């Protein structure tokens, strides 16, 4: 048993840190740290920087452009990048579609799409959820009917994050309406510029519009855009959903958010004394810090098991639940820390270059919107309830 990294791993960490110091634009890390909105160009900028270094697709096989890192190296990179407030990479092409193509796509599809993901030509989004199919994903209704060399797609997807920027969407569609729920589903790649595709933003409670509805009306999709076999899409979808993501616990991001919270608590007073000396606030802070330190080790245990070839099972559900709980607890306490100044809502202040007079302490006004926005963590990506069902199925087996 040894929690310490090897000298080689520590050297790698230093290399990553050095890279982040040199290459991560302060303008971007400042925006991330302060919880400001990233533009499409911001995200593309960081994507391109990583691609130039060859570190973008760090979990891809080398033959497709991955850096050949071990699971531990990927965990180190993800952790350091998050702690440095690097923008999160948009995962839809890189971490969701690509693994599916690599495992189930045709060589032609891989050769066409993967380089375009790397160089940023194609921005992908995800077409899984539907208004009637959330946790019960397999009940999806969007249909694809074969018509010569095309599928004709009709239906609606929802919760399509950043779909407003996307060139392409990968979709689960129903190709056999007579089959049982999970058996008539196919995995289809659809050009967002196709006639009949319409994107409508969904405004969230924090005023943000990062998710969308996508409507398909008689959209013609060439049959070569089918991934794998017709009616086998559920297999690919499940692979995508359980695809081992070392970063699911978000330890690095939570650690960065916690550092920011602690700095906030140190800078503020309440009732005339430092907020960090308020016994109940201090207890909340300490509980989160301990939970996070425990989580960091839990995460490394899973990473180490993966490095030894262990298959992720209940572990990834566990990391998802606990990771999101901790992140949400941090954002709740960050909101709470600002007291009355969490109430003012200055949406312009969430955008780069805002020059208005600040209201209250720095960053106070992003605390409540961030808290509300982060409620999504326990809902999206397989709700925490679904994750508990999975854990229970694994351990109780009923």
């Amino acid at each position, binding site marked *: 048993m040894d929690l310490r990294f090897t000298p080689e791993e520590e050297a790698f960490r230093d290399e990553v840190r050095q890279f982040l110091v040199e290459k991560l634009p302060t303008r971007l890390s400042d925006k991330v740290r302060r919880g400001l909105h990233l533009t499409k160009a911001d995200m593309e900028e960081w994507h391109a920087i990583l691609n130039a270094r060859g570190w973008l697709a760090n979990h891809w096989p080398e033959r497709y452009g991955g850096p050949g890192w071990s699971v531990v190296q990927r965990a180190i990179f993800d952790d350091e990048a998050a702690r440095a407030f690097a923008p999160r990479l948009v995962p839809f092409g890189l971490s969701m579609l690509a693994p599916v193509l690599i495992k189930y796509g045709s060589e032609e599809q891989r050769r066409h799409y993967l380089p375009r993901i790397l160089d940023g030509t194609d921005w992908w989004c995800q077409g899984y959820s539907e208004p009637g199919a959330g946790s019960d994903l397999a009940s999806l209704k969007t249909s694809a009917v074969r018509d010569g060399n095309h599928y004709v797609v009709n239906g609606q997807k929802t919760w399509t994050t950043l779909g407003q920027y996307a060139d392409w969407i990968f979709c689960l569609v129903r190709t056999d309406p007579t089959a049982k729920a999970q058996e008539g589903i196919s995995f289809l790649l659809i050009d967002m510029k196709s006639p009949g595709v319409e994107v409508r933003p969904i405004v969230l409670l924090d005023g943000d519009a990062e998710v969308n509805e996508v409507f398909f009306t008689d959209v013609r999709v060439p049959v070569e855009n089918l991934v794998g076999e017709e009616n086998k899409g559920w297999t690919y979808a499940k692979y995508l959903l359980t695809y081992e993501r070392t970063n699911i616990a978000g330890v690095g991001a939570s650690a960065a958010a916690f550092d920011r919270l602690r700095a906030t608590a140190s800078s503020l007073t309440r009732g*005339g004394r430092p907020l960090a000396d308020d016994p109940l606030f201090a207890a909340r802070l300490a509980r989160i810090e301990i939970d996070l330190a425990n989580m960091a080790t839990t995460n490394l245990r899973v990473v180490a098991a993966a490095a030894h070839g262990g298959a992720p099972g209940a572990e990834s559900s566990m990391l998802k639940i606990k990771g999101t709980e901790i992140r949400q607890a941090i954002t709740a306490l960050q909101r709470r820390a600002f007291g009355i100044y969490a109430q003012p809502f200055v949406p312009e202040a969430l955008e780069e270059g805002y020059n208005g007079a600040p209201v209250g302490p720095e960053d106070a006004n992003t605390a409540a919107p961030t808290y509300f926005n982060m409620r999504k963590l326990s809902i999206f990506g397989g709700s925490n309830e679904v994750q508990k069902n999975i854990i229970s199925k694994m351990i109780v087996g009923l």
Partner: protein
Amino acid sequence: MDFQHSEDRRMLADTLRRFLAEQAPVDRRNAAAYGDSGYSPAVWQGLAELGVIGALFPEAAGGFGGSGFDIMVVFEEIGRALSVEPFLGALTVGHALAAGRRADLLEPIIAGTSIVALADAEPQDRGPDAPYATRATPDGDGWRIDGAKAVVAQAEAAALLLVSAQTVDGASLFLVPSDAAGVSIQGYANVDGGRSGEVRLSGVTLTADARVAADGRAALAAAEAAALLALSAEALGAMEVAKAMTIEYLRTRKQFGVPIGKFQALQHRIATVLLEVEQARSAVINAADAFDHDQGADRDRRLSAAKYTVGATGQLVAEEAIQLHGGIGMTWELPLSHYAKRITMIDHQMGDQDQHLQRYIALGRAA
């Protein structure tokens, strides 16, 4: 012992609920709450004409109510409708003036013709007995005030601000016209609707009679007591609606071929929400009773108990309501999300759950 509101109060609640349902359904409420003025002058005027403001004050102050249960009834309805009209200002300023024996000033407030706001909190945190940074100094026959006040609800709409400021006599209270020279207001939207503002006072000169209380402590304590009760009742009203919406969603939303309310894990969670909301209702009843019957630390303890309770329960209810709704619960379009925001942000007004728990403990030690 009687846990029914009196006939009069039930009528008041019904009238208020009907009026708000008709005149300020949630889409119109949102348009006003997130709009330029942050509230609806028409709704405000209509409610004033219905006598809602008068219900917040006793006859001695020109009203026809003013008991704890009157305040509870009115603010529970305000919470149910997410009303953003400037009731809290009228309540706090009015009770401060009445406690400071200046009930003579209440008539335009009760008529709804004068919108008022309590400008007490300051941008810089201070200790419980520390002096205000805002200072009033004698200036000829009158006063001159310099300082700043923080997150004043509906500051832009207010014609008069009741400002606390340090004088040689202690914390005095001043009625300051918002258009007086030297008063500047930086208004902004609140994350949960309505508007507030930062008030700056630079060399604001006032006549002698602007000082409505030389020692403002009793008046501020009265305002605080009324505000804690009102905010607790408002939170209760909003929680009741969020709970009802969630129950309805559990009944109708289907996944895996059945309404999600069939899933036992969700059933048990909504049961917990139900019983905690009932406990919160009891806390607000206790606070209203304390407002009417208790004095000093006894009263303040039960008020803090209520504010603590709705703070803790509010977080549970808001988070569970969103989680049980799933993604749709996070959308601007669904009224629920606005209830969740309001419930959450009440814990940021007049002290949060931790502060009130600690105040409760401290008052118990002092007793």
